């Protein structure tokens, strides 16, 4: 291994050095400063004689005298089952004071794409215990379902609730060992306070035992954030596809990750795409999100819940926009519902789980699940629309039918959505509440529900059928 003292230019997070041997693209670099500090980086561009290096810890303290060592390999993550229960920094080094990690394997953090032919289609339900998700936007194993939120919203509480409650109803047959559940938590640029909340919650509920935590805090180097999610996902893939865990990956906050990408792009003087983000951001994000999934012949799965705060609560901003095009749906956290005190403040109308249809129904959840959720969507959407009208003409001016929909929307928010961050609701319970609410409407309004289900579940005494019910309050 040769050492060079040939740094020619230092600019933002980038260092340019002259070399006299062939250096591979993406290779790992160590830079030792005059003060004896060792910084790590990665080759961003390699050409004859000159390489561009992105330094994870930031370039402060580096001068032209610093020495550069090329390690001759791309970045690797040491993986082992013993990682469970550990807390690591954004580059995968333990920060919990525990023993050193003895890796079973060292895996390349730039995961190769899964051959679509080798994937197995995700269709097994994950019960999160949150009605807005289980009932209306069901999560399945191997899915990537982001939470679209904005600053000041309780997305972390929702994520913690999911991490705490998530379970996979195991197949009845029980041949062989049941796969275990593991949570891998990747924090990118979150504040120390937020991090503490997460850690306290992990410790309080004993969830840490089945978790691996990667922490890149707000004051940690931004460039490091570009490797943190890759470390997280490499660990997830190892646990899922070699150790048979069902892994739930929570990445927060993807917005900080994208800011770091933009920072590097700007430092390299690249032609920017929309709003200054690099043109390859779609590809880059896809390389993270697409690492969710299941593989034929392997028992485990990787499910992702990335969290992103939408700048200005605007979902057309490039970060949520590109994310939405890659992920299989999204859960919206709504500031209005939050200010009304709903917990979790999930707005189900724009939310969507693309894999829901294949993960629910007879044999998977309950036969009426799909119909119930469709009908509740339609009814809540109608009630929402009518609210605008009420503001103009008042409730009295509306028909009895319209009033029923307005009541439905109110009760839907109060009884179905607002369950509190500490309540773990089973799917049965969620669907029963759904039927309680749907029975407020006359039977013939339930045009999305199969007749048989109406006969089985419709509550005759709930007022939906009585003509004389006074609904206008």
């Amino acid at each position, binding site marked *: 291994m040769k050492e060079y003292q040939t740094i020619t230019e230092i600019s933002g997070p980038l260092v340019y050095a002259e070399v006299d041997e062939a250096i591979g693209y*993406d290779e790992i670099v160590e830079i030792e400063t005059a003060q004896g500090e060792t910084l790590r980086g990665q080759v961003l561009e390699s*050409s004859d004689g000159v390489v561009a290096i992105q330094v994870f810890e930031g370039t402060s303290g580096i001068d032209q005298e610093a020495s550069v060592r090329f390690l001759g390999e*791309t970045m690797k993550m040491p993986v082992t089952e013993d990682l469970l229960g550990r807390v690591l920094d954004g580059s995968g080094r333990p920060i919990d004071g525990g023993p050193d990690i003895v890796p079973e394997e060292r895996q390349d953090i730039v995961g190769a794409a899964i051959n679509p032919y080798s994937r197995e289609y995700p269709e097994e339900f994950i019960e999160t215990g949150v009605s807005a998700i289980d009932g209306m936007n069901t999560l399945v194993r191997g899915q990537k379902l982001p939470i679209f939120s904005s600053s000041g919203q309780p997305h972390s509480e929702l994520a913690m609730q999911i991490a705490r409650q998530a379970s996979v109803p195991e197949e009845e047959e029980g041949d062989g060992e049941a796969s275990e559940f593991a949570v891998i938590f990747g924090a990118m640029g979150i504040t120390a306070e937020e991090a503490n909340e997460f850690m306290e919650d992990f410790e309080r509920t004993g969830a840490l035992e089945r978790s691996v935590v990667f922490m890149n805090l707000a004051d940690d180097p931004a460039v490091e954030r570009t490797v943190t999610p890759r470390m997280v996902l490499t660990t997830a893939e190892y646990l899922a596809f070699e150790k048979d865990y069902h892994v739930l990956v929570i990445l927060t906050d993807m917005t900080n990750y994208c800011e770091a990408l933009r920072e590097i792009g700007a430092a390299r003087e690249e032609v*920017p795409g929309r709003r200054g983000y690099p043109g390859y951001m779609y*590809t880059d994000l*896809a390389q993270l999100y697409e690492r969710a999934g299941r593989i034929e012949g392997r028992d485990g799965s990787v499910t992702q819940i990335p969290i992103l705060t939408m700048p200005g609560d605007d979902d057309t901003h490039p970060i949520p926009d*590109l994310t939405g095009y890659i992920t299989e749906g999204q859960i919206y956290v709504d500031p209005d519902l939050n200010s009304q005190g709903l917990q979790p403040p999930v707005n189900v109308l*724009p939310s969507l789980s693309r894999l829901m249809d294949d993960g629910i129904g007879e044999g998977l959840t309950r036969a009426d699940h799909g119909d119930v959720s469709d009908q509740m969507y339609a009814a809540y*959407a109608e009630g929402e629309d009518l609210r605008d009208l009420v503001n103009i003409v008042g409730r009295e001016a509306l028909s009895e039918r319209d009033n029923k929909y307005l009541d439905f929307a109110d009760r839907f928010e109060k009884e179905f959505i607002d369950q509190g961050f500490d309540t773990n609701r089973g799917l049965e319970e969620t669907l029963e509440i759904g039927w309680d609410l749907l029975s407020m409407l006359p039977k013939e309004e339930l045009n999305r529900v199969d007749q048989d289900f109406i006969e089985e579940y419709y509550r005759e005494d709930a007022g939906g059928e009585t003509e004389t019910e006074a609904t206008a309050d």
Partner: protein
Amino acid sequence: MSQTEAAVRDDGIIASVSGPVVVARDLDARMNDVVYVGDEGLMGEVIEIEDDTTTIQVYEETSGISPGEPVENTGEPLTVDLGPGLLDTIYDGVQRPLDVLEDKMGSPYLDRGVDAPGIELDEEWEFEPEVAEGDEVGRGDVVGTVEETVTIDHKVMVPPDILEEDETAEVVAIESGSMTVEETVVELDNGAEVSMRQEWPVREARPTVEKKTPRTPLVSGQRILDGLFPIAKGGTAAIPGPFGSGKTVTQHQLAKYADADIIIYVGCGERGNEMTEVIDDFPELEDPSTGNPLMARTSLIANTSNMPVAARESCVYTGITIAEFYRDMGYDVALMADSTSRWAEAMREISSRLEEMPGEEGYPAYLAARLSQFYERAGYFENINGTEGSVSAIGAVSPPGGDFSEPVTQNTLRIVKTFWALDADLAERRHFPSINWNESYSLYKDQLDPWFQDAVADDWPEKRQWAVDVLDEETELQEIVQLVGKDALPEDQQLTLEVARYLREAYLQQNAFHPVDTYCPPEKTYLMLTTIKTLNDEAFDALEAGVPVDEIIDIDAAPKINRIGVQEDYEEYVDDLKSEITEELRSLY
């Protein structure tokens, strides 16, 4: 690769690497030549030449590749292998079969530097000649057939590049029976040998005689498409929509139920799980016209979003070249590209790595040209062998933020003649397919009407116009309703709203996940519309006779319209329902 005159050119070495773009020195290559980069032999394509440096886009991940490694030139442009075995196969963007890759790599991950021929070279096919010794054949002429799948007879043709235009040659020898794709099946007197396999450069359209006006619809079994916004066989369509509005489901429905002979489905930058769904579902689904498995008429190209960006750029070309090949056999081919925005973004990404001067929103200035070149390869053609065939191209567009004013949508709309606008609001209220009936259009409507009149009913165009008028009126009335409430409207307008509601809920909505409703033949589409028209006519008669609108709306028969879609024996159901509606309404006065 076949032996062409262009001998292998001089090889070069890598000068620099940055993501998918590699610069080589001393490489003597032509534009668009395919090269193998580095010790691992990663496949790439020449995209820029300047002095002695050559810029290459690499179709595989470039981690760990370093300057000084060799670059080998094949001297040939990017080509696809054409021949029996294309159907019932799933490829990546440069036509490597994904199942073969899995075998060769022995891992569920896509490794680098593994190549595989586009069609199986060892497999034997039963060749049945259709020419005799002494016959004169020209370019593109069929010399025999092979049963490629249960659905499709593969026609073996004289490759267009071995004879001049209008030149013919005499057949001097014929083989028949079991043969591999590389064995010669027919020999010509000019020395040329025809085998089942031919190659064609992907960026070049296969020759035809002329483009004709398409007059047959591509029947999709989707009510809103067939009924209101039909596309022709040989037509072009765009489906733009924000995420979550159902582009992919619409594309899948078309791939499953469109009455084309061949389906080429290009998943360009799509989700891995979605492609897996296609791979899982299609072999099990039945082709509604033949009853055979859908895969027997389908070729899939899957370049998911995390697969190399350069291969994403080439995958639509791979798809349309295969489509043209089947068109040459006289088949109607439908190509779905999901999504063309990802393709455009791949161009943008490569272009920015080349530091080209960007056009609008960072897209390269040649974006519009590339899009129109692609869509122009679709059409209803007279082929060079005298047969007629078509390629219909249906491209999904994913506009950022659902804003249709962005460059990819706008440039696409300038070319395509059918526009199916997906609407997030409709999707939000679970109105699927969420195609907005006010914004969408089809410029093929008039030229396709004779077909529908002939095949379904004489008054097809009038009925359609009636539905459009009612929906238009509803849109206007809804604006008033938003202000004053429904009850403030005059009774006849309230009734129009009710009729429009059935049009929206029963006719325009269609449940892709219901086993019966998912496919609606044009006859059923028509009968459903006439049922709603019956309701409309009878209801207005009743209103005129003095029946209050509330009573009319409340009749028990009307909601049954919503269940026509799920009826298997719809003819009887519709007959009964029509008389039920008529009786019930007439009993009111």
